[in-house]
């Protein structure tokens, strides 16, 4: 966990001190103001707002569309299931660089460029094969007895999904939330490609800006400060959600 301490100490240093060797752990003159400077060199407040909107909507969309799809693959019988599932997985197997340009053209024709739509809408349509796969694995682990009983009583699949499966899959849904949050919060490729105006930047883009260009790199310390602040929500989210991983969640309520 040393690297984090290094990040913190770098963030507090004066520009030239950053590069002195051997590594000085305690800055001579801690510049706590660096955190403030880092956040005001560009309008980070706005970027945080953007990131929060995008990320929360994405999580919502993912939870809904991916759990629906995963339920289908795990619990329902239908023709073409195996092939379709393979198709789902295959969407993860093509490197993103290759589909980047066609996707850009697609969004241009939809006139969704320079809006948040390309970043949010796809998640409502299950474009997150990783999550479908994850949820499917866990749904498969939920015993069928309860579902069978409910079905004989004439319950629709949806009722089973909503009232039975989802509550039991809480740990996994939590995991999906965490993953999706991290992924979307730190993703900078998609915002880079689809967003033009600075006012719609996400924090990940702004962070990337610190590295850009050939100009003065005397702001390495500010970059570290900004990185720390940007990571903070991730840490908070994780810490908050992992509470739901309580040990001994009893899955089976049946005694035979």
């Amino acid at each position, binding site marked *: 966990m040393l690297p984090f301490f290094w990040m913190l100490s770098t963030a507090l240093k004066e520009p030239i001190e950053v590069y002195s060797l051997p*590594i000085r752990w305690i800055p001579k003159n801690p510049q706590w103001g660096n955190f403030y400077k880092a956040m005001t060199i560009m309008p980070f407040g706005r970027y945080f707002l953007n990131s929060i909107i995008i990320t929360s909507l994405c999580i919502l969309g993912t939870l809904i569309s991916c759990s629906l799809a995963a339920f289908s693959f795990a*619990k*329902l019988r239908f023709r073409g299931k195996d092939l379709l599932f393979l198709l789902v997985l295959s969407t993860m197997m093509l490197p993103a660089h290759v*589909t980047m340009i066609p996707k850009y053209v697609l969004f241009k024709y939809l006139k969704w460029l320079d809006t948040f739509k390309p970043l949010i809408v796809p998640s409502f349509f*299950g474009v997150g094969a990783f999550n479908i796969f994850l949820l499917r694995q*866990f749904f498969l682990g939920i015993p069928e007895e309860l579902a069978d009983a409910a079905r004989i009583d004439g319950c629709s699949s949806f009722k089973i999904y909503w009232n039975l499966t989802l509550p039991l899959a809480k740990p996994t849904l939590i995991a999906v939330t965490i993953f999706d949050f991290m992924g979307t919060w730190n993703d900078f490729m998609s915002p880079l490609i689809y967003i033009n105006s600075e006012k719609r930047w996400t924090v990940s883009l702004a962070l990337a800006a610190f590295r850009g260009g050939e100009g003065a790199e005397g702001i390495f310390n500010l970059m570290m400060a900004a990185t720390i602040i940007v990571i903070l929500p991730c840490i908070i989210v994780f810490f908050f959600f992992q509470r739901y991983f309580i040990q001994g969640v009893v899955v089976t309520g049946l005694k035979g």
Partner: protein
Amino acid sequence: MSSKRKVSRLYLKEEREAYLFLLPWMLGFIFFTSGPMIASLILSLFEWNGLTSPIWTGVNNYINIFHDPLFWQSLKVTSLYSFGSIPIRILFGLLIAILMNQAIKGIGIFRTIYYLPSVVSGVAVAVLWRWLLNPDFGLINILLSKIGLQGPAWLYDEKWVIPAFILMSLWSFGSIMIVFLASLQGVPTELYEAAKVDGANPWNIFWKITIPLISPALLFNLINSIIGSFQVFTAGYIMTNGGPANASLFYVLYLYRNAFVYFQLGYSSALAYILFLIILGLTILMLKSSSAWVYYQGGIGR
């Protein structure tokens, strides 16, 4: 007779519901994913620099790939990396997940600390690790020297650059750990209690109860790791850019270079599809073998 009709009607109803559930995903696939995927497949049959009109070349790109020594090099580099990092990460993630699966006070903090590395984004990680792997001042070599070993030049030594990346991959075990953790939550405690009552030792409990019950998560982590490690890019791009002497030329790095440095978009699409087939093949293998060792509590099977 009537029961048979009821069954088939139920089956059709179930099928209808299944497709309904899949509707959002299918729409997403059709509109957002399939188009670009097909477009890039078609692109692989052309020669295109993104500016002038594409020139038809048929399968020439694919033929040229097989004669391209850097293609084979990048495949070798990526395979070595994958087969090195996958087992290590999964093992490590599993071990830590087991440790974190306790309901003791403050476990939350530990979990957060162990997950923290995965939270830091690509560039910060790269900078961190360049320092850690510094031949003289880096922590790794300092620790090695304490036990009397001379650490290698890591990122500057052709033989050691891939092991360096494998070491770095350990850093991101966090997501693997979470998946295992969630899975461990689903293991009914009664089984453990019953086993203890029967006098089973911890080793047996681990192999006969825990592993089978978390095997769905294991399958997930395996397939996911395969898909992920064959596509590794950012670290290589930032830290070594394929060096020294192409010893760390990861496949997707080579692909990216062909697309956005040489501007040969058709060639890089072809590279992408070859990778696609490789990953697909490995995944199908995994899935097929899974019926032998993966146990789903739910019982409906694949």
